[in-house]
């Protein structure tokens, strides 16, 4: 992880899920492998304690009640994570939004929010009013899947709706040029996952780390 994150400004670490429904084939496979190793336990997250890069966690809310959510957020805070992103919250448990915000603040975390490309504008402006660490815009319907979506237009509109809130764009960011154009469209950052994992699986650690660095440099040139 240290090598892969050399050029990253922050890391997003996924907590393994049995049902990562918004993930594409590559990230689903990582969930499957990791979940078979550690199941739903939180103790293994301790390995993240003391990371030298700022990082956030991603977890599926599915299966978590309020008590489980509180424990997750407290654990996240105790190991130095900045927030916990719950991608299924707006779609599957929208009524939990304020609970999540309250529990995040109680644990000493900022909230961070997920949005898809077909999303209520009122929710995006509402997100920004809750002072999140960032809003994550999923550019595609699943991670690592590339459909002919006008992602730049969507990013530009999302940025107008969230205003000064930090907007990160993810799902199928796989090249420096895409990262650069997303920033030009209005994104403040990009999240790269499937592309680097795929490179790692196919070509090994160094090529994967190089790809991550190339994307990061493309992004910085545009900023």
């Amino acid at each position, binding site marked *: 992880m240290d090598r892969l994150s050399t050029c990253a400004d922050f890391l997003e670490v996924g907590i393994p899920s049995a049902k990562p429904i918004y993930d*594409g084939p590559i990230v689903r496979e990582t969930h499957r492998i990791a979940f078979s190793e550690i199941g739903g336990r939180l103790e293994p997250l301790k390995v993240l304690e003391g990371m030298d890069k700022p990082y956030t966690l991603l977890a599926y809310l599915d299966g978590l009640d309020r008590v489980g959510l509180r424990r997750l957020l407290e654990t996240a805070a105790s190991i130095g994570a900045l927030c916990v992103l719950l991608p299924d919250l707006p*779609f599957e448990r929208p009524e939990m939004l304020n609970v999540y915000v309250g529990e995040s603040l109680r644990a000493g975390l900022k909230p961070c929010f997920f*949005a898809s*490309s077909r999303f*209520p504008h009122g929710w995006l402006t509402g997100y920004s009013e809750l002072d999140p660490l960032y809003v994550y815009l999923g550019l595609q319907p699943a991670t690592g899947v590339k459909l*002919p979506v006008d992602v730049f237009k969507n990013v530009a*509109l999302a940025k107008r709706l969230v205003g000064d809130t930090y907007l990160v764009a993810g799902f199928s960011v796989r090249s420096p040029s895409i990262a650069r154009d997303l920033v030009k469209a209005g994104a403040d950052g990009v999240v790269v996952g499937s592309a680097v994992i795929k490179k790692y699986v196919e070509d090994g650690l160094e090529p994967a780390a190089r790809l991550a660095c190339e994307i990061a440099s493309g992004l910085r040139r545009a900023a």
Partner: protein
Amino acid sequence: MVVPSYWYNLASDLPVPLPPLIDPPDMGESRIALLTRILPSKLISEEHALDRYIEIPEEVRLAYSRLGRPTQLLRAEGFERRLGVRGRVRIYFKNESVLPSGSHKLNTAIPQVYYALLDGAREVATETGAGQWGLAVSQAASIFGLKATVFMTRSSFESKRVRRLAMEALGAMVYPSPSHATSVGREALAADPRHPGSLGLAIAEAVEYVLSSEDRRYVAGSVLESVITHQTVIGLELLEQLPEEPDYMIACVGGGSNFAGFTYPAIGLRLRGEAFSKTRFVAVESSSAARLSKGLYRYDWLDTGRILPLAKMYSLGSGHVPPPLHAAGLRYHGAAASLSLLRRLGVVEAASYPQAEVLRAGLEFSRTEGIIPAPESAHAVKAVEDLARKARDDTVIVFNLSGHGLLDSDAYERALALQGEIVKAGSGGG
């Protein structure tokens, strides 16, 4: 009045986010990724658009205009008199039946076929129930110079012969579904040689057919959010035409595009707190396929063949095979994700009626307004009849006459027989 310049995307105004399409839990190849090989690119882009309004391409606007848009909003004065509510209840209807293919389906067939052309496709393929969608695709394909292939549910292939012939007259190739042209069709026939077909199965056949060649695109008749967005041309015109805000807006529901296209611009105004606060939105289905009334709200397959992704919707189960119906366009197992969500949230109400009552109401409407409604549209007519008779004074009802029934003589033969006006009962339908 002119054709609108934009379609409306309701997702931008929903009170809660719309659950996205997902891949099945135990997938091999991503079904979502597969969409790039199936659907026109621009349709996929519109399916994932954040904008509230989506610009209608000029070529599509011109085709809309050439084929008869805007359609009229009419007052059903004769029907009011027949129901005995004249002076107490005012009934209006948006007349989509005047479009050349006889139904609202042309509103999305035109942009989708045009988008397929932009991708360099030479052929479009699709499914159809009663044939309204297949006919609309055949017509749009003929306008843009593409070949059309249509998988028509077998029960309709046999009972809606005239509509099938009309598709063929427009140059389309029409298969009865299940057919021997695809593996999913052959499997269904092996299991049941007398299989009546279902929309879910016909979708699976059309998709498999498209995947077997690079120069084909699948065009979707309903359910997808982008398809629904195209149909909002109906509701956007309606906003300009309505002389007064209605108490009820009513339309029939199969996959949901007719209902959604008719109501969503008004529902959007309601959700934004700008208008239509008193309006009740009533989705009318066949009691033989009452997915909004009796289905479960869950992720389910869009098609019986399980080739496409899953959508969160009210569904009777993708394997559900409703009995043959004259209103074959209402036999789909699910309802569009946004419509399902609105039903879940209580913004939309659902009602369902059996076929015999629906066709009788259709005859009543025919004999007072001079327009024979399609059996699907007659479901809305039946709901109007029920609500108008029970309504308080000064009630305003507007409904979508989504299509005419001139090519559904089999249905009305049956209806006339039930009323004892002809001796011989029609074939098909229960």
